[in-house]
């Protein structure tokens, strides 16, 4: 299936009224969620996950994907107007964006961030298309041993790049795998960790855990510290950047797009990382680096482009190899598995319609977002003024009903509350929830790959060490783990701020 016919197939699916509506709903909710501090894209995706059960697989994915990149757009709005980032990826935009607003150039800042996001999103999808095909074909040569090794490496890499202690991140990953093993063993049929409870026979569902860890715990943390928001009240006039500003933004946007895309492919590289690296790059390349932080438009255009194209980049490993490099991708993968679509090397072959449908819907989504953001800014500002004391019960209600609706069972609500509590303590003790959720979703696949590999090798682990891809992946993972314990290597550890969903 070559590029052109793929695109045709994709647009045939995404340009139906139903899917346009789903895309629109997704980006609308995404922008809304991105504007509101306290709930992020991941929270919204987990909230809406149960509601997608009745939908077609492609429609569900289109909507969920729309939420994610829509939230990136929304986050920029609050960063510029209120100096409060609505999303992790928009933190950097506060630096120069808010300064521009103070100087009366709020409109230009908002305008350029919408344009940068649009260009980056569109180009990113193009790159995604170009890269996915060859990678998917290469991934077809993967067998269970390779899949296991790559997933193992992915989890290890995520722990390595995570903020804070690597040991904590790794242990959270292990907890995730443990949690995923609750239920009936697929191969032998024996119940594991069910502790005699009927409700646990099928294992714990992803949704209550995700909503608890990200949604409920976020609400509780927010309730503890009262967030005071002063909304920038002057009128936003002149929504378009002038010619000079457009000219200055051209290269930052291009650089941001490429940076963001490749960072998105890596595990742990997310909107936060991409935007920060783009900002640093622009500052270094600028003729007036000292002016950054006072309202330089390059400092808005570059990061905004980066945090959008990294979404496209993150899709690559997920869609082609079934390896999520980021929690949001893991959630999308969870959604796909719920709809009985298995992401991985065979995904492109078996479901080209879903693959191309989602990719082409991203083009449509970017256009919709451009249309939505420029005129609707006034409305978003009003939304920002809703007091949190009214907002949080609504968020909680959504979580609770979402959890309940899975199996019509109150037990799932208890799971939700339990993990809300767990998530709260995790935040307090500086344990990241991302490795846990990723490991929870990958757990069953990881285990299955391992057992299949051992079946192939007849129980002999040495089989892993004669396959080149496995050697490289497992070796690299081993080095990363050991580096934590060898003081010399530990000091040199690369510390990238990973997108932690609990960002304000």
């Amino acid at each position, binding site marked *: 299936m070559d590029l052109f016919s793929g695109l045709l197939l994709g647009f045939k699916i995404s340009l139906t009224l139903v899917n346009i509506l789903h895309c629109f709903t997704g980006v609308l909710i995404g922008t809304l969620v991105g504007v509101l501090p306290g709930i992020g894209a991941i929270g919204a995706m987990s909230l809406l996950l149960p*509601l997608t059960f*009745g939908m077609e697989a492609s429609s569900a994915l289109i909507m969920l994907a729309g939420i994610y990149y829509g939230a990136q757009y929304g986050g920029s709005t609050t960063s510029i107007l209120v100096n409060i980032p609505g999303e992790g990826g928009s933190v950097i935009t506060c630096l120069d964006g808010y300064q521009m607003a103070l100087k009366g150039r709020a409109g230009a800042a908002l305008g350029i961030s919408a344009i940068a996001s649009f260009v980056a999103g569109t180009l990113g999808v193009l790159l995604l298309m170009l890269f996915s095909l060859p990678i998917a074909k290469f991934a077809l040569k993967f067998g269970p041993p390779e899949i296991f090794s790559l997933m193992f490496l992915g989890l290890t890499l995520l722990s390595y790049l995570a903020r804070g202690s690597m040991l904590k991140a790794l242990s959270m990953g292990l907890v995730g795998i443990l949690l995923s093993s609750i239920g009936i063993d697929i191969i032998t049929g024996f119940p594991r960790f069910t502790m005699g409870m009927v409700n646990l026979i099928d294992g714990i569902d992803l949704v209550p855990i995700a909503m608890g860890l990200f949604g*409920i715990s976020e*609400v*509780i943390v927010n*309730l*503890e510290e009262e967030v005071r928001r002063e909304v920038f009240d002057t009128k936003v006039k002149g929504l378009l950047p002038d010619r000079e500003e457009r000219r200055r933004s051209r290269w930052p946007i291009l650089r941001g797009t490429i940076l963001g895309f490749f960072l998105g492919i890596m595990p742990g590289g997310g909107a936060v990382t991409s935007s920060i690296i783009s900002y640093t790059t622009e500052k270094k390349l600028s003729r007036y680096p000292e002016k950054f932080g006072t309202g330089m438009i390059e400092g808005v255009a570059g990061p905004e482009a980066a945090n959008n194209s990294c979404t496209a980049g993150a899709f690559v490993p997920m869609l082609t190899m079934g390896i999520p490099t980021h929690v949001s991708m893991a959630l999308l993968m969870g959604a796909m598995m719920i709809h009985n679509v298995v992401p991985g090397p065979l995904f492109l072959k078996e479901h080209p319609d879903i693959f191309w449908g989602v990719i082409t819907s991203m083009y449509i989504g970017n256009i919709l977002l451009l249309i939505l953001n420029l005129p609707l800014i006034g409305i978003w500002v009003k939304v920002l003024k809703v*007091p949190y*004391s*009214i907002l*949080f*019960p*609504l968020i*909680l*209600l959504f979580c*609770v*009903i979402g959890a*309940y*609706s899975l199996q*019509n069972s*109150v037990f799932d*609500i*208890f799971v939700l*509350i339990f993990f*809300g*509590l767990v998530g*709260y303590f995790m935040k307090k003790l500086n344990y990241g929830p991302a490795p846990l959720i990723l490991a929870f979703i990958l757990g069953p696949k990881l285990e299955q790959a391992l057992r299949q590999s051992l079946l192939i090798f007849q129980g002999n682990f040495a089989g892993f060490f004669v396959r080149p891809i496995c050697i490289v992946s497992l070796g690299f993972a081993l080095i990363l783990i050991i580096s934590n314990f060898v003081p010399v290597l530990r000091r040199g550890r690369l510390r990238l701020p990973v997108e932690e969903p609990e960002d304000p």
Partner: protein
Amino acid sequence: MAISVLLSLLAYALLLDILGFLLDTLLIFGFLFASSGKHSWKVVLGASLITTASAFLLFGYVLKIPLPGGLLHF
């Protein structure tokens, strides 16, 4: 305050099958809106009613999720 929120969620879950969706949601919502202490009882009552009604319509009719009726079969 965070603890009272958690406890109220727990209460919601426990009471759901007894009171049914409408009553339970109304009660807990009222409690949650009022817990911040920033709004008059009129606002709290109004907001709870509106939210419960819209939630019932949204989840029950638009999304067609079966909602518990409680002992009185509400």
